[in-house]
């Protein structure tokens, strides 16, 4: 019997959180090996476990996968969260990339020098309100279905709902004018596997703090 997927990262959201969400939403149990020091990362590198010397790395089906998108696409394919054909997949990819672009801005905000932080935050708020959320609201409005693509849950819905939680953490008022997105968030959050993941004690990671940033700097040497 195949072992559980094993996630290698440090104890924070970072670039691994989307993978945790996807596995959790797919109802897949997974293990985590949390890096605590730069020595832990060096060990993985010396073992030859990291193709490009970077984490995230996920051990799954006898492979050691790296590159967040490659990992997410593999999991989505495996657990039927990637649409029914090429064209649905293209839409799912397009929506996922939009989520990733905004997600990246939010992810990197803590690394912003203090004098630039306010400007960055304003830009994030502007992009959220004028570019990204309207686009997704429009997609849902255009077909009136419960999910973004093909009337079926896909990775696009999971990534988007994860993002909506982060947007809400940043500024709850940003979601105010997007009723269909709020509906999607509620609907996906109520799926049993997601509901479980949202409860305290799950493998979901909390927002980053000064401490997690310090740990990241130490481990990844930046």
């Amino acid at each position, binding site marked *: 019997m195949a072992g559980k997927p094993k996630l290698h990262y440090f104890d924070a959201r970072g670039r691994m959180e989307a993978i945790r969400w996807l596995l959790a939403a797919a109802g897949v149990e997974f293990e985590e090996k949390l890096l605590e020091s730069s020595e832990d990362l060096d060990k993985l590198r010396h073992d030859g476990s990291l193709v*490009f*010397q970077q984490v995230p790395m996920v051990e799954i089906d006898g492979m050691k996968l790296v590159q967040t998108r490659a990992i997410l696409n593999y999991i989505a394919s495996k657990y039927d969260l990637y649409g029914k054909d090429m064209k649905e997949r293209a839409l799912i990819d397009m929506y996922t990339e939009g989520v990733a672009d905004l997600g990246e801005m939010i992810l990197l905000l803590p690394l912003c020098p203090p004098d630039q932080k306010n400007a960055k935050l304003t830009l994030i708020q502007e992009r959220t309100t004028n570019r990204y959320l309207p686009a997704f609201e429009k997609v849902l409005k255009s077909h009136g279905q419960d999910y973004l693509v093909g009337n079926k849950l896909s990775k696009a819905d999971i990534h988007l709902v994860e993002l909506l939680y982060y947007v809400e953490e940043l500024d709850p008022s940003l979601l105010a004018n997007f009723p269909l997105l709020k509906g999607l968030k509620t609907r996906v959050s109520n799926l049993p596997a997601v509901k479980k993941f949202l409860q305290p004690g799950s493998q979901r990671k909390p927002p980053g703090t000064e401490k997690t940033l310090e740990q990241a700097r130490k481990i990844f040497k930046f």
Partner: protein
Amino acid sequence: MAAKPKLWYFRGRGRMESIRWLLAAAGVEFEEEFLETREQYEKLQKDGRLLFGQVPLVEIDGMELTQTRAILSYLATKYNLHGKDPKETGFSWIESSCCFVRIDMYAEDTLDLMMMVVVAAFKPPEEKEESLASVVKKAKTQHFPVFEKILKDHGEDFLVGNKFSWADIQLLEAILMVEELDASVLSDFPLLKEFKTRTNNIPTIKKFLQPGSQRKLPPDNHYVKVVRNVLQF
């Protein structure tokens, strides 16, 4: 008869070039509309053709696709450059998807490297020099050694599954791009040199590398000016 794919972008490499490479390598003819004015761009936005208000945009198979990776992945699958057909593997999910995922991993890495070059064009001169030097260093120390090893370990002609794929096309594109910055970059990588020669000689790629093809030139001041003007940044 299916219409040709139509590409909307600036008259330069940027984020569209990998898409041009993929189509060209697949032997697919495509049309291009070049953005030169702010008005053209605003029209595209107003017409609702840009999901997130951004280019690249590719019209293909009745879809208006944006987001570089979404486009690349669709094209790679459509033109059989995304790994083994499930039928080839007897519908073994693991066998066919393992190729798919390896191609994705390698393509992601070379795309990361090339994006550094894309972004460098828009930096002020001193920062730009530094960025490009950093790209060459990263190519030599982090990226190319990995691909040299992959080729060494399996001894095959192509990166994944002994079959020409999207990963090979992007690696060639990345090699040529870094060579433009430092012609000696492959000096420690004999297998990559052979790979380059071999892939350069694939008929569709050979054609694309000839003058007069739709391959675009490295970014110059004029290109940067047009992009800044159209996107207003």
